[in-house]
């Protein structure tokens, strides 16, 4: 009966009239809870048109709901919305679920192939921490478990739009996958269950103000990523999912340690994110511990290996992990805590981890030929840039970090999915095999080109953000700026190399490629449109999503003048686009290529007077980079910086 009374009270608080705020609890609760419905339905239907319907509806409604919340929030004109309510029943339900999740992870960790004994013990320790913090009341409850601000809206929209599109793409991709690997058991129901659960957890992370809730959703993403990476069930998947589990359990332990410090330490005793931020440097040790959890989740040195392993999963999973969920949760929390880091040694060292990751991952990407591995390293590198922004802090750096988060999500989502479609057509994801893709599959090739341009060239969004990164770092952290300058050059090298393979026009005819389903092309087109739109809309994005957030944190700062920038972006886009119309009207006469000898068909006559095909390969600079050594050095450097950050946080 007590439960019923609690439920009534909860209902009453739930019905509180918050319309004056523009956003109410219902809408936030809906956007977090709704994806659970398609998740369960997917588990129920398992396959066939019913599953397709569930995924379509689920993805569209979730994306729409995320956008609706964003629009409501903008319309309200406020910059931070705390939604106080008390629902002990809900808290207990979450606690119960969290215990179940940890018990499940414990059971899985026990059966790990590699005998990493510390993983189960860490899970037990986390469970003990959770029970102490939440059940025994060690951590004061947050009065407003949910809150909404521009950073949260940004993550919510990214999860809603990119995550929803990835789910739509996965419908068609997973059908092909089933056709390509007939021996594989059909686990699509479980697959979509996990994807929607993941999206729900992301919405939760974006909107939670209570640290206990945040931790709950954090653990859900660990669970989902572990099971998704495992979904193919072969040996490599199992090995890599175990690695992802081990590292993310470590991250969870950092998170729990941060909460324990808040409960027991000399600092502020609070379970509320905004209260933590308000206490500033007094909360630095907790912020550093939560930041380390963020480093693990966003695959920074020395914890980056799990993301490289994660690419064994079907491509939509990679797209989801890299573009819209998992890793974005990590940098989200770092950006959130950035005001605490600003101007501290610990913050500088965290920025150092990010910058070192950016440099090392960019160099390592040069030596890779597997498209998904290149993308994985590029993700790690770009997240490093965001981490560097969060660690340094300040208005300009945060501006750049938030925009990087958004631009990277759309462009990387596009690239992963495009590689997925290419892989099913070419039977390979080796970049060498993509030579001439623009010629062979015009639509897919151009979409991939847009994604790559979006990642590394002016005037596209990523470069606009990088411009601000350099300007911000030059002012406040020249050492970080130097590292970023060195890290930028290799990104140029590996992207241009890939772009070069795509735009190549081989004279020799190649076999025709299988048709790409319309859904897949539609999703890729939508992501490409988002990439281009984000480029043109930088000023309005900044105005709507980023600057109000920064104005709250740094009230004294001058407004940003982006007008000259937008003019330039427009001119550059026109210059890139218009001349393409001329391409159909060639000025010159077609001619065969020069091959230093007599041409024979599509090759040449060699020194033995035999016809020989001309074959071209890319540079990987292995002799200079020595990737294995570099990876080892980077790992230790990252570990040293992370430990130093922890020590500096504890010292303060």
């Amino acid at each position: 009966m007590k439960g019923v009374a609690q439920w009534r009270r909860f209902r009453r608080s739930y019905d509180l009239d918050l319309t004056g705020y523009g956003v109410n609890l219902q809408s936030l609760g809906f956007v977090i809870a709704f994806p659970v419905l398609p998740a369960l339905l997917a588990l129920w239907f398992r396959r066939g048109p019913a599953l397709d319907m569930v995924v379509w509806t689920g993805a569209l409604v979730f994306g729409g709901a995320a956008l609706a919340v964003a629009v409501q929030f903008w319309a309200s004109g406020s910059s931070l919305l705390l939604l106080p309510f008390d629902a002990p029943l809900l808290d207990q339900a979450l606690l119960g679920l969290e215990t179940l999740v940890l018990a499940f992870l414990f059971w899985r960790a026990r059966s790990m192939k590699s005998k990493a004994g510390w993983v189960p013990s860490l899970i037990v320790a986390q469970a003990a921490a959770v029970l102490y913090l939440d059940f025994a009341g060690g951590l004061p409850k947050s009065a407003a478990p949910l809150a909404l601000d521009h950073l949260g809206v940004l993550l919510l929209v990214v999860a809603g739009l990119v995550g929803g599109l990835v789910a739509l793409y996965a419908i068609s991709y997973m059908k092909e996958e089933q056709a390509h690997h007939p021996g594989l058991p059909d686990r699509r129901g479980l697959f979509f269950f996990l994807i929607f659960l993941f999206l729900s957890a992301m919405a939760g992370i974006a909107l939670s103000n209570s640290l206990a809730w945040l931790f709950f959703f954090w653990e859900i993403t660990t669970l989902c990523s572990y099971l998704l990476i495992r979904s193919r069930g072969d040996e490599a998947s199992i090995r890599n999912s175990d690695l992802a589990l081990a590292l993310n359990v470590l991250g969870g332990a950092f998170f729990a340690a941060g909460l324990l410090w808040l409960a027991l330490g000399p600092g502020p005793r609070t379970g509320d994110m905004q209260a933590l931020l308000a206490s500033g440097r007094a909360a630095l040790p907790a912020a550093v511990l939560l930041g380390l959890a963020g480093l693990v989740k966003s695959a920074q040195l020395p914890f980056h290996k799990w993301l490289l392993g994660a690419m064994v999963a079907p491509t939509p999973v990679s797209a989801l992990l890299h573009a819209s969920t998992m890793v974005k949760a990590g940098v989200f929390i770092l950006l959130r805590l950035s005001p605490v880091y600003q101007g501290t040694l610990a913050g500088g060292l965290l920025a150092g981890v990010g910058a070192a990751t950016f440099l090392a991952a960019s160099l390592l990407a040069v030596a890779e030929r597997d498209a998904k591995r290149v993308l994985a390293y590029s993700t790690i590198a770009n997240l490093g840039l965001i981490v560097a922004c969060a660690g340094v802090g300040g208005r300009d750096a945060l501006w750049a970090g938030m925009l990087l988060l958004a631009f990277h999500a759309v462009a990387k989502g596009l690239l992963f999915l495009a590689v997925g479609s290419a892989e099913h057509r070419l039977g390979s994801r080796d970049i060498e095999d993509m030579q001439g893709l623009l010629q062979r599959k015009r639509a897919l090739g151009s979409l991939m080109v847009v994604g790559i341009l979006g990642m590394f060239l002016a005037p596209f969004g990523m470069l606009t953000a990088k411009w601000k990164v350099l300007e911000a770092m030059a002012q406040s952290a020249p050492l970080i700026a130097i590292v970023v300058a060195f890290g930028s050059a290799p990104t140029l090298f590996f992207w241009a190399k890939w772009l070069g393979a795509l735009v190549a026009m081989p004279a020799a005819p190649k076999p025709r490629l299988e048709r790409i389903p319309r859904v897949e092309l539609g999703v890729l087109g939508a992501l490409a449109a988002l990439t281009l739109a984000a480029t043109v809309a930088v000023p309005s994005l900044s105005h709507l999503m980023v600057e109000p957030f920064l104005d709250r944190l740094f009230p004294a700062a001058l407004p940003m003048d982006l007008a000259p920038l937008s003019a330039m972006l427009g001119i550059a886009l026109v210059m890139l686009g218009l001349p393409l119309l001329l391409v159909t009207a060639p000025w010159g006469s077609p001619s065969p290529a020069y091959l230093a000898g007599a041409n024979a068909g599509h090759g040449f006559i060699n020194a033995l007077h035999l016809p020989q095909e001309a074959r071209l390969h890319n540079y990987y600079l292995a002799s200079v980079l020595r990737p294995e050594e570099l990876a080892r050095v980077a790992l230790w450097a990252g570990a040293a910086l992370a430990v130093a950050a922890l020590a500096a946080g504890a010292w303060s």
Partner: protein
Amino acid sequence: MTPLLSALLYLVLAPLAGCLLAGLDRVATARMQRRKGPPLLQPYYDIRKLMGKQAAEVNRFQGYYLAGFLCFTAGAGALFFGGGDLLLVIFALTLGAVMLVLAAFSAHTPFAHLGAHRELLQMLAYEPMLILTALGLFLATHSFGVAEIADTAKAPVLVLPGIFVGYLFILTIKLRKSPFDLSSAHHAHQELVRGLTVEISGGHLALVELAHWYENVLLLGILYLFLAPFGWALALAGVALCYLIEIVVDNSSARLRWETALRSSWLVALILGGANILLVPVLLRGW
């Protein structure tokens, strides 16, 4: 002078200046080799002749990429002489350079492919130093705006000696001079043929030459920024001296392996550029 006017003046005058510079370069080089050399206006005669020839193209996208190379290089220069943001100038210049590389990649033949990769290597080699140059100028003058940098009272070269030398070092790569002319030799070397530009001919090749003229004037403009407060006569004399040094280096060295080019330029950027940037506060106080 308004920014727009100076940008327009650059667009009109840079080809003239670039053409004269190329002519002077060839005359000076010839004198160093005890030859008489071509007339001063030979680059102009070359380009006029190229314009009159039909371009033989291996694919129809090449012209597009080359037009992009010219547009973005000239655009970067216009932004620079219009007093714009130095980092954006560098980004635009990079965009132009990537377009040239794509033109070579699109040809998909062994020599063009080799040239394209070597050009990318060169970009990998010079890019960090180029960005460090912008960072250094910002730290010395507290602005990324070219107009503001040119207006400072204290000559940046006094605060940025390391960056200045480092920039001269990568200028050798950017001007495609020996020992770093890896991607496209001026002479038809066996292993390269013409590398990057092997499949580019006629009017297309004229576009490439024209873009180089624009680019060279811009690069020397960045050099001028270091010396601007000394007065225009002295600063121009300094730039001319630096260019002369580049010609001497060009004529007295053989081409290096790409590994050496890459390692040496990163080392120079790290030691001269990086250290200089960290020492800027000390140097600023010292002067």
